[in-house]
């Protein structure tokens, strides 16, 4: 839940106000899309929601935790425990194979490598990569790499998954496949999925679409069974 989020970059005359009192909600069991033109503040918004960037003003509560009260080390722990990230460029470690890449959040949490990779292989299995676990990223297609990234985001069963343009580096068919898998595997009654995207071909996977413009949410659409509901203001927070 974000209320009145303010964020500016730069100093003096070079100061740019990126977020202007932005409100945003993501609900468990839903896939929320955050869409808008380039430079409207989407990346800054998900960086703040993802506890990577701090805001200048406003109230941000994630899973009941006031993120503004957490310091750097605690923020990192909070991210590790509660967030899964899927990046546009996948950001897999090139020297590690698929299983090792997917196991990183578990290893970072202190699980043994063997146990972590075993769990990671199960996740890769769910994503249809059971025969690719030993391959390094360079040996995988873009779609397969993104599926490994999805496995890495989900392997530690986070409460919130943040996807930054997950289909931007993929062709249309791979993008659709990745989103289908994301819907199947990531969606959970206790998990909120936030997707930042420009790709209107995947809008059908959204439960809600928050449109952002000039540093604020301009409207939120609710999509149910391909029907469209629209409102001009953010909905009431529920999680």
């Amino acid at each position, binding site marked *: 839940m974000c209320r009145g989020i303010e964020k500016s970059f730069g100093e003096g005359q070079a100061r740019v106000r990126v977020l202007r009192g932005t409100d945003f909600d993501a609900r468990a069991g839903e896939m929320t899309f955050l869409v808008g033109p380039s430079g409207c503040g989407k990346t800054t918004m998900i960086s703040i929601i993802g506890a990577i960037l701090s805001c200048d003003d406003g109230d941000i509560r994630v899973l009941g935790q006031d993120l503004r009260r957490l310091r*750097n080390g605690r923020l990192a722990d909070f991210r590790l425990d509660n967030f899964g990230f899927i990046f546009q460029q996948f950001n897999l470690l*090139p020297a*590690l194979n698929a299983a090792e890449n997917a196991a990183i959040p578990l290893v970072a949490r202190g699980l043994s490598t063997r146990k972590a990779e075993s769990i990671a292989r199960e996740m890769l299995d769910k994503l249809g990569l059971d025969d690719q676990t030993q391959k390094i990223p360079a040996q995988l297609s873009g779609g397969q790499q993104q599926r490994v990234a999805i496995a*890495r985001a989900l392997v530690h069963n986070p409460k919130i998954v943040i996807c930054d343009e997950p289909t931007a580096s993929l062709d249309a068919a791979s993008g659709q496949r990745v989103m289908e898998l994301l819907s199947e595997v990531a969606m959970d009654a206790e998990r909120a999925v936030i997707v930042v995207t420009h790709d209107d071909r995947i809008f059908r996977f959204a439960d809600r679409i928050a449109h952002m413009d000039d540093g604020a949410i301009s409207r939120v659409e609710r999509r149910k069974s391909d029907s469209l509901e629209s409102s001009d203001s953010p909905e009431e927070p529920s999680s």
Partner: protein
Amino acid sequence: MYRTALRMLIGDKTKLLGLIFGVAFSTLLICQQVSIFAGLLGRASSVINDVRSADIWVMDPSVRTIDASYPMRDTELSRVRGVEGVAWAVPLFKSQVQVRTREGRLENAVMLGVDDASLIGVPNEFLLGRVEDLALPDAIAINPAGFRLLFPGAELDVGRELELNDRRARIVAILDAAPAFAANLTIYTRYSLATAYTNPGRNVLSFIIAKSADGYESNAVAENISARTGLKAVSSSAFRIESIMYIIENTGIPVSFGTVVILGAIIGVAIVGLTFNQFIMENLKQYAALKAIGVKNIRLLSMTLCQAGFVCVIGYGLGLGAVVIFFRSTSDVDALRGFYLLPEVAGGVAVLAILIVLLSTLLSMRRVLTVDPATVFRG
């Protein structure tokens, strides 16, 4: 995460090889040069080391090194013998001579003349012949390196004749004397014969070597000798250090070796620093992703240190191995005799290698620590 860090490093074989080469090259260069330097300093005191039975050296007050003596009067020997605490004292003549073989080969040699009666001062290790053989007419003993210098390819033997200052000398023994600083060929003979070979002038007594009596401490006896005779008297260990310090303070050798060592360190820092920095820069996005995922700075720092440590251990091990191979393969080379890898040098270079790697990775670590995890969202 350490395994992940090592997999990241090992996965980039080109840079890994570059990093290891940098550390190994520095280790090899520094270790080898410092070892040779230490060996050279050892040669500066090799004659003192070989005279094991004496613990006091007496000389003209102006003398500062074993390699440059100023002759004393022969009567000084009696005065030293008369000092309380001196068990015995014998003369030692030291000079440089030119030696010529019958085949016409000419070499420089360090000649040491020991007391005619006792032959004290001759090293104990004889490969051929006996110490008593030095009592024979025109008898000299030489070191193996010197023999091979004079008679290349010949097996060590005795009975060969040499020409010293128009006089005949006959090799009666081969003894294992350490190579001297001034020449690889060392000749031991009787004091009277040595002075005859070199024809030095009125005063011929280079050094007096003495032994402190039971119950007397050598430094105290040396002070006593100085006080009573006006000569310079020091213990063997003090003279050894003084001779080494003379080389360090009065020759360009330390500067020359020091320059190579500094260059080795700089090259190491440059190679390792640039390669490691490149490695970090290429993986910066991945480090940012790890940070975004929730990996803490301290963990990333330890991962980077783990990579640096791995490079340091492998590089240092290979460099040290190369040094060992070098000294092993040259152990039969007379010119390099006395040069070997000292444990102190290996330990010191290990510390230096750690410093090189730490210094090299400092900048890269800073990049890892300050990388903004939000960059992963910026395409």
